[in-house]
Structure formats: C-alpha cells, structure tokens
C-alpha cells in the first residue's frame, strides 16, 4: 500500500462525515490494489465499529471496482464479515452483483440471507423474483425480507409472487402491507380474501383502499358484500385510517343493508364525504330511507341529506321539504329544484322568493334563473 493511501485509510475512522467523503474521494484516485487489502482488514475488524464502517463506506464508493474483493469476503469463514460484504453490495445496488447476492441467499447465516434479500430488493431486477420466491419459505426474518424485496421490485411477476405469499402465515402480514404499497388492481381480489383472517382484516382493508385510491378505482362490490357486520364493527375503530377504510368498503359493497348506517354517518363530520358517496352508490334504492331521515331526524346534517336526495335525482321528492323549519334545508331544496322543469317546482321556487331568510331567497332566485323562469 502506498503511504498516501495508507495515511488516508488510517485517518478515515476519526473524521466526521463530510471530511470522510472528501478523503474517500482522494483515495479513489489511487489504484485499488494500493488499499484494497487494508479495506478487507477493516471489514474484518471486530474491535472498532468506526474502522469497519469507514471501510464499508470506501467499498460503497468504489462500486463495481471492489466486487472481486467483496466476492472473496463473501466466502469468509466469519459470518459477520460476509454480512458486511452483503451490506456493502446492498449499498452499491448494482445488477452486476446479482450472482454474488444469489449465492448469498444460500448462506448458512440468517442475517446474511436477510441482507442479501434486502439488496436484491434494492437492485429491483426482475431476475431475482424466483430466488426471492423460494426465500419466502425460509426462516421468518428471511421470508419477511424477501416479501419486502418483492414489493420493491414490483411488476407482474413480483406482485404475483406477493399474492401467493398471502397464503403463508409467517409472512402474510408483511405481504399485505407490501401489496398496499406496491399492489396493482389484480392484487385487490387477493387482499379482499384476507378479510377472513382474524386480526388482519383492518390491515387488508387499508391495503385495498390504498391500491384503489392509487389507481382511482372502485373494487367490485362482491369482494365486500359478505363482510358487512365486520365492516360495521371496524367503523368504530379509534384508528382514523381503519375507520375510513371500513366506510370506503361499505360504500363499495353497494349493500342496501348499509343504508341506515350510511344515513346515520351523514351526521359525523369525518364520515360525511364517504357516506354521501355510499348513498350515491346505492342509487335510487336509497331514496325512501333518505326521505324518512329528512322527515324524522334533526340536526344540521339534514341539509346534506337533502343534497344526497338531489344527487340521487329525486328532486320532485324534495318539494315536500320546501316548508321545512330549518332555513338551511329550505335553501338546499331551492338549489336542488334548479335542475327540474316541472310546474310544481317553479311554483315552489316562486313561493320561496318570499322566504324570510335571504339565503333561501337567493337560492330560489338562482334556481329560477337557471331554469329560465322569471322571479
């Protein structure tokens, strides 16, 4: 080793991060054979984490120039040395190291295999999918690392493998989370089937919602039809994300059994938006229930129920609420009537022009104008 390279390597562990980076830059200008032996010694240093970490940083900066040395370290008798070598390859994340990492997946030490799986995930090369597919049957930590790696790789093959992981108890939970992050529309069917697993229902539902939102889609109602009691229970969850996921699924189910629940949810500020969507999903079947709720309930949410009825295309049914005691309801009715051209609606709108509340009169004026009637 040249004295310059020796000097730089010797001082590395004591330097702070920016200085270390500058020194590594200087070192890289020297031929590898000047210092690679010293790096190998550093990786084998059991006494000083600073020396070891400095050596790992140099290896990472060297990239593929250090592969021959790392390949030798991967055959070292000390599992810690092999682990550090894999960690370096993980940091480099070069597809050229795939054969080295594939071999490391057969290592006798579990931590080496975990690190190798993580490195394969970081490289994101679809050629690793079969190796990782085998690793999901390995010890739990390796299996979890493999699942995580498959999610990072993504694409049809990896996601298909992840869906099959849902059948393996030891990595099911992580596979559900991973699919939530990386899954595609095909994954939803598999995740919906996980609603049956006790303790994983919320996780599976949250993952489903994440995919649906990411792809701007509504999953098929059949996936959720049979889980209504479970979903109704989950809506009471203290976790806002679980609560939201449950109501989204209730909406997607288009199950009329959820109608009353959706109407009640209109009174909850956090759920109103989703409940409105759910009622819309139910379509005209929901109208009688909504009408009953406007008649028989009290509170500011009645205005939203009027809006829901409007969105269901049931404007004529709103005529009966034109004389409601709540001016907010009367104003909403007036606005909704602005899309129907029936004589009775025009008559009601004209009468609302004499309402004591300006908000109501203004809404009636706007509606009359939009249907081309004079005030």
């Amino acid at each position: 080793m040249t004295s310059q390279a020796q000097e730089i390597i010797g001082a590395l562990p004591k330097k702070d991060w920016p200085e270390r980076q500058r020194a590594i830059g200087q070192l890289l200008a020297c031929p590898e054979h000047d210092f690679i032996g010293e790096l190998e010694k550093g990786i084998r240093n059991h006494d000083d984490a600073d020396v070891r970490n400095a050596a790992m940083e140099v290896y990472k900066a060297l990239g593929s120039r250090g592969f021959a040395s790392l390949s030798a370290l991967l055959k070292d008798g000390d599992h810690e040395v092999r682990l550090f070598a894999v960690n370096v390859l993980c940091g480099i994340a070069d597809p050229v190291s795939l054969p080295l990492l594939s071999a490391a997946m057969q290592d006798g030490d579990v931590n080496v295999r975990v690190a190798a799986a993580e490195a394969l995930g970081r490289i994101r090369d679809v050629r690793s999918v079969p190796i990782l597919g085998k690793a999901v049957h390995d010890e739990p930590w390796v299996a979890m690392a493999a699942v995580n790696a498959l999610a990072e790789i993504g694409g049809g093959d990896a996601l298909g493998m992840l869906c099959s992981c849902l059948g393996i108890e030891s990595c099911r939970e992580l596979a559900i989370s991973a699919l939530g992050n990386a899954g595609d529309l095909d994954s939803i069917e598999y995740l919906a089937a996980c609603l049956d697993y006790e303790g994983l229902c919320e996780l599976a539902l949250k993952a489903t919602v994440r995919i649906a939102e990411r792809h701007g889609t509504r999953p098929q109602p059949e996936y959720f039809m049979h889980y209504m009691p479970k979903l109704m229970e989950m809506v009471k969850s203290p976790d806002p994300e679980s609560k939201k996921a449950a109501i989204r699924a209730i909406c997607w189910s288009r199950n009329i059994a959820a109608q009353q629940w959706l109407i009640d949810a209109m009174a909850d500020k956090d759920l109103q938006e989703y409940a409105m969507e759910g009622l819309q999903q139910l379509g005209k079947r929901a109208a009688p229930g909504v009408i009953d709720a406007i008649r028989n309930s009290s509170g500011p949410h009645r205005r939203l129920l009027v809006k829901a009825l409007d969105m269901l295309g049931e404007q004529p049914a709103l005529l009966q609420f034109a004389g409601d005691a709540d001016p907010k309801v009367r104003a909403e009715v007036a606005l909704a009537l602005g899309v129907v051209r029936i004589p009775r609606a025009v008559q009601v709108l004209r009468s609302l022009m004499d309402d004591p509340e300006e908000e109501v009169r203004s809404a009636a004026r706007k509606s009359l104008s939009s249907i081309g009637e004079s005030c």
Partner: protein
Amino acid sequence: MSVLKKLLVVDDSQLIHNMYRLVMNRYQGCKISDAMNGLEALDILSKERDFDIILLDINMPVMNGIQFMEKLHKENLYRNIPIIVISTEGREEDTLRALKLGAAGYVVKPFKPHMLHELIEKIMARKKGPAASPVTAGA
C-alpha cells in the same frame, strides 16, 4: 403491558424499519419515527424529545450507533430516553461498548418479536422505578 407511545428507530435499512412497524403492531397508536443513521436521529431528537425508547443499530453510514452513543454520552444529551441496541451474534465488543456508553439493553438479531416486547416492557417498567443495570432480551 406498558404503554409505548413514541419510538425512534435508528437503522440504515428500510427493510428493518418496515419490520419494526410490524413487530410494534401490538402497541396500538405508538408513533414510530425512522432515522437512517445517527445524524438523522440527532436531528429528530433536537425537534422531538418525548420518545419513550430508541432502537439503535450499530453499523450505519454517516454516524454509526457507537458514534451516536458517544455523542450523547459526551454531551449529556437525552439521558431520559432509554436506548436498546440491536446487535448481531459475534458483535459482543460493540454491544459492550454501547452498554458502557449508557445503553439500557440490547437484543440480538434475528430476534423473535416477543423478545423485543419483553425487553421494552422491562425497560419501561424500570423507567418508572429506580435506575438499574442494563437488561437483555430474555433475561
């Protein structure tokens, strides 16, 4: 079971962060913050000091676990937050060094989730009581 509300995980592996999220599922509502090295952890701690426990890996770039502990020890920082060192078999020197620098306990990878839970329970219980010697998973 102790109530663990806030946890800081310091590890350069995103995989490990994901795993801890699963392992910590039993502590419902526990907020987990991720730092990829000691320097990031210091930055987080300068803004939020109310962590119940720190889980600390040793081998990390930028600032490793030992350097992080040395900094805390030297500058007498965050003494009220117990640190659990996540070690691997064969790294006894690092573990001992971390314990000398004030780590509250350690666990060796790959560990079973219940081992970490038990360690956390012990440390949280001790946090309420008088100061005691470090603990290890399964001890």
